[in-house]
């Protein structure tokens, strides 16, 4: 390299190698701010924001999957509760002449114990196994709901009185089966009469249509002689819908930007050279309905606001004054050394700055929803609550406070925070039921910025208020 040295290189190297310029004090102040633990924490969050966002998205997916799985479990639980309701229904008292073992209705614990015992026997007898043990349990319980049934297969002589169909069943089925004469003697007419009375009373009322019960079906299929239990008029509780639903919404936003504090000339310049453009929001929320009128919603909200910078700056003419040394020829005294000033005027130049800026927010809204008006198809509600910011990112350039240059938003002079703080949101939600699961959503709303987006040292606060018009769908579990 040395062989290629040039006098110009030497001149500038020697002249500038030890050159020093005193930096302004605010540079150290900004450096000092970054040494605080809070700043380091925020900076660490900024650097790992993608991981956190991925984690949040993963949690939402897992939660959604869990809700779907729980939904299936809920159906099974319901069927099980129906089965238990039948099993726990008061059984008619056993005939007085029957064996002592069957005088009292077995408890549910006994039934389950017997059921397990029977299942183990069934498995040893190579009965067809069902892959879902939860579902397999239901027909097993139904067809073998009582120990008497099991006993009837093993010791029919003991269970003969229990296998006798009651008059109630006969009356209901309309089957003319003549009971054995022995049973006519053994069965107590009082009990039968009571049962008939019950049946009449029940038939007299408007009995809700009994849903297809796997227990009853199984009993019929298995020709299970358990008429007393299978034919009890059990009124199933209505199947309540899940309180959970998920919503996906999108909105084109009309944004209003507010500045406060600072130099009015600077505020005017910002408004003049930076114009708010398109803005939109996407939300993915879960809703939990406490009761008919109250629900809570929360999830992730992604918003982006675009602005366009178009700024022309014309610098003033630059006048450089140099001290020069020269000689003048004095006719009397000869050459005289003098020092004089030279003014070098550089005309001002116009610089154009153009930039497409974007402000991106990742938020968690927590909204309480009041359902004001509900019909079979429509639901109208008012919701409101805080919106907590997870991350706030900026891109582009803004005019600098002296209105002579721009500040790059990806540089160290970026006046915006990495965390946008708190917003408040109010929505009017109208939903239209499309089918059993899906609702169409229309949701106009307002969102107000509470905390400033700029650092306190910037001297001027900046907030956004937006008017949203969400449309989306809701899936009810």
């Amino acid at each position: 390299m040395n062989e290629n040295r040039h006098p110009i290189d030497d001149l500038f190297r020697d002249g500038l190698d030890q050159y020093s310029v005193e930096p302004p004090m605010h540079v150290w102040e900004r450096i000092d701010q970054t040494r605080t633990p809070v700043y380091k924490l925020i900076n660490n969050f900024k650097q790992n924001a993608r991981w956190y966002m991925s984690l949040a998205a993963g949690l939402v997916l897992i939660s959604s999957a869990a809700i779907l799985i729980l939904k299936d479990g809920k159906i099974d639980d319901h069927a099980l509760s129906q089965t238990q309701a039948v099993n726990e229904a008061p059984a008619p008292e056993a005939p007085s002449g029957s064996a002592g073992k069957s005088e009292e209705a077995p408890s549910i614990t006994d039934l389950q114990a017997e059921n397990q015992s029977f299942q183990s026997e069934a498995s040893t007898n190579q009965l067809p196994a069902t892959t879902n043990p939860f579902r397999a349990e239901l027909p097993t319980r139904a067809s073998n709901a009582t120990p008497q049934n099991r006993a009837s297969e093993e010791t029919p002589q003991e269970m003969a009185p229990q296998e006798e169909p009651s008059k109630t069943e006969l009356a209901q089925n309309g089957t003319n089966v003549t009971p054995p004469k022995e049973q006519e003697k053994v069965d107590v007419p009082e009990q039968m009469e009571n049962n008939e009375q019950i049946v009449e009373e029940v038939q007299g009322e408007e009995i809700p249509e009994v849903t297809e019960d796997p227990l009853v079906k199984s009993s019929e299929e298995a020709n299970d002689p358990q008429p007393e239990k299978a034919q009890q008029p059990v009124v199933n509780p209505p199947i309540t819908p899940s309180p959970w639903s998920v919503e996906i919404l999108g909105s084109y936003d009309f944004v209003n930007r507010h500045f406060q504090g600072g130099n009015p000339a600077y505020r005017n310049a910002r408004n003049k050279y930076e114009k708010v453009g398109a803005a939109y929001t996407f939300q993915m929320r879960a809703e939990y309905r406490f009761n008919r009128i109250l629900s809570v919603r929360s999830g992730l909200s992604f918003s982006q606001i675009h602005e366009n910078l178009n700024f022309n700056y014309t610098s003033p003419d630059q006048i450089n004054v140099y001290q020069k040394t020269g000689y003048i020829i004095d006719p009397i005294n000869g050459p005289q050394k003098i020092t004089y000033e030279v003014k070098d005027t550089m005309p001002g130049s116009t610089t154009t700055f153009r930039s497409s800026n974007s402000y991106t927010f990742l938020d968690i809204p927590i909204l309480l929803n009041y359902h004001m008006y509900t019909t079979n198809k429509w639901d109208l509600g008012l919701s409101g609550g805080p919106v907590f910011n997870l991350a706030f990112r900026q891109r582009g350039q803004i005019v600098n406070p002296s209105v002579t240059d721009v500040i790059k938003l990806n540089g160290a002079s970026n006046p915006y925070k990495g965390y946008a703080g708190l917003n408040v949101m109010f929505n009017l939600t109208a939903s239209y039921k499309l089918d059993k699961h899906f609702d169409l959503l229309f949701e106009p709303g307002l969102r107000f910025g509470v905390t400033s987006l700029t650092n306190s040292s910037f001297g001027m606060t900046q907030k956004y208020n937006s008017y949203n018009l969400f449309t989306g769908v809701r899936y009810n579990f």
Partner: protein
Amino acid sequence: MREEELINGCIREDRASQYALYKTYSGKMLAVCRRYARTDLEAEDILQEGFIKVFDNVSKFRGNGSFEGWIRRIMVNTALKLYRKNSFKNEVIGIDDNYDMPQEATVLDKLSQGELMRMVQDLPEGYKVVFNLYAIEGFSHAEIADTLGVNEGTSRSQLAKARKWLQKKVIESQNIEYERK
């Protein structure tokens, strides 16, 4: 405070030591940053980011070279990172070959540091970075090519053009005096 004490204080994240270190080197480093930056504000940004890196990584300084050289290298790397990020297009300007003449040291010595700095700052972006790296930082063309992701030939060409451009400016500066006379 001795340099070793300053370094140890900065490793302990002692604010007084950090400030003392900043006061010691910030002037020279701002001059370095200004040679690479387009504007003074950008130079301050580079200085700020560079000193944050210095404080974050001061424990990694092994003492193999001078501490000032280590800090200067961080500043230059920070400036180059910004340069690559902004990916300035190298401006093509007309250079008259008549200006490619050797200058006498006696004439050149008369220029002040401020004038020299202004000339370097006025260099077109592509020329500026190559000239700074080669003439002042002492990089070879191979290192410059590797750092900037350009060919060695491009680096040589940019350097030659930078020299011509600076010569022109130096001569213009001298001519002002001649015209006065």
